């Protein structure tokens, strides 16, 4: 059976409703909340601070350390709290996707910690996490060459779709999930993962869709960062 109508009634190339804000955690150097549909990600930046263990220090530049964590009540079936194989992988790829834009040469031998917490999940959490982390780093005033924007695209049934929900990921006829992170200014990919089957042409189509989604998110992120100064008047 062909996939003709999406579960939540969106268009196939339509993104879920988004909102974002920065400076939500007063004790952190920078923080942000990014919400896309029912998925919420909160990021907090601490540092530059002393790095332990010592052997991880780099004498020429600072180190970025990301930590992704889903709280136990974020999903419908209780998640066992704490680190897991999955969260370790996501922490790693989040760090790798943000690192290329950061300029940490002024903070040698230090670490910048980014803690990403998912209080509510409905697919696309790693992408929401990357968006929140990127906003929080900009809010903390860490020098960056560009922001990083992420969106998940993929295939549900026989259609290439944008921004999958959990229902679509679990679609009976198999779904493909492709989280993409890119730098909006020159469109360089910093993250590209693929889970499922997809043909070459469909992948190309999906990446075009991802670019479109990223542009939409980038507009929101720009607005969020500027408005964080306006509202305090």
């Amino acid at each position, binding site marked *: 059976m062909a996939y003709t109508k999406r579960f939540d009634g969106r268009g196939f190339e339509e993104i879920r409703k988004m909102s974002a804000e920065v400076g939500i955690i007063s004790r952190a150097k920078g923080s942000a909340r990014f919400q896309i549909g029912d998925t919420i990600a909160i990021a907090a930046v601490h540092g530059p601070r002393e790095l332990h263990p010592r052997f991880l220090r780099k004498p020429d530049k600072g180190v970025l350390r990301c930590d992704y964590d889903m709280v136990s009540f974020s999903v419908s079936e209780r998640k066992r709290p704490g680190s897991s194989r999955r969260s370790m992988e996501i922490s790693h790829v989040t760090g790798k996707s943000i690192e290329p834009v950061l300029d940490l040469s002024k903070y040698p031998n230090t670490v910048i910690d980014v803690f990403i917490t998912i209080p509510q999940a409905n697919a696309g959490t790693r992408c929401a996490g990357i968006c929140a982390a990127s906003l929080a780093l900009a809010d903390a005033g860490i020098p960056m060459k560009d922001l990083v924007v992420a969106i998940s695209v993929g295939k549900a049934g026989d259609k290439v779709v944008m921004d999958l929900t959990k229902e679509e990921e679990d679609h009976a006829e198999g779904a493909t999930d492709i989280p993409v992170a890119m730098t909006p200014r020159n469109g360089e990919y910093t993250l590209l993962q693929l889970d499922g089957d997809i043909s070459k042409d469909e992948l190309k189509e999906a990446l075009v869709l991802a670019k479109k989604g990223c542009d939409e998110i980038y507009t929101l992120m720009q607005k969020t960062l500027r408005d964080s*100064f306006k509202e*305090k008047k």
Partner: protein
Amino acid sequence: MGTIITKDRIVIPGQVIAEGMDYLPAKGTFREGESIIATVLGLLRIEGRLINVVPLRGPYLPKAGDVVIGTIEEIGFGGWQVDIGIAYPANLSMKEATKEFIERGADLARYYNFNDIIFATITNVIRLKAVDLSMNGQGLRKLPPGRLIDVDPTKIPRIIGKQGSMISMIKEKTKCQIVVGQNGKAWIKGETAEDELKADQAIRKIEAEGHNEGLTEHMEKFLE
């Protein structure tokens, strides 16, 4: 010919500010090909051909000549280690700490003890891990116990104001002694806790609204 592309007062990281080789990237910017791009979230300042972005938030980077407030973290054999709000503690050597003669093997805690607050100057920065402090200079001293607050280091110039106008106003209106360090720490001591709280709130208000125009009038009204 170079052209300024953006019309925004506040620029965000990755935003293209200008095109062409006529403009030069200064603080908070870098050049990529022909374009000049912002690296921090901040206010755009164009001075002739130079393009600056003054950060609105950000960590403190120590530089020689800055006056800072720190707390004693560790007492060693030859001096003290001081937390000045950066990743690693700064060093205050015995020679730079006091003009008094310190006898060999003397107890250094007699001069500065743990958790003492000091107002010092940075004499030398080699790396973030090697920052030297000195207590020789005008007004540099051990501060008596008071309220020590953290503010964003990028807002310190606004808290001090032009030739210290803003900080003098707060001092006068709240009748508090206030010392502000360039590392984003402020020390407040007043006669009553209410006075201290008022000064604290005033500083926090500047931190939140420092980038807006008409700040002085706004603060005058607040302190009345």
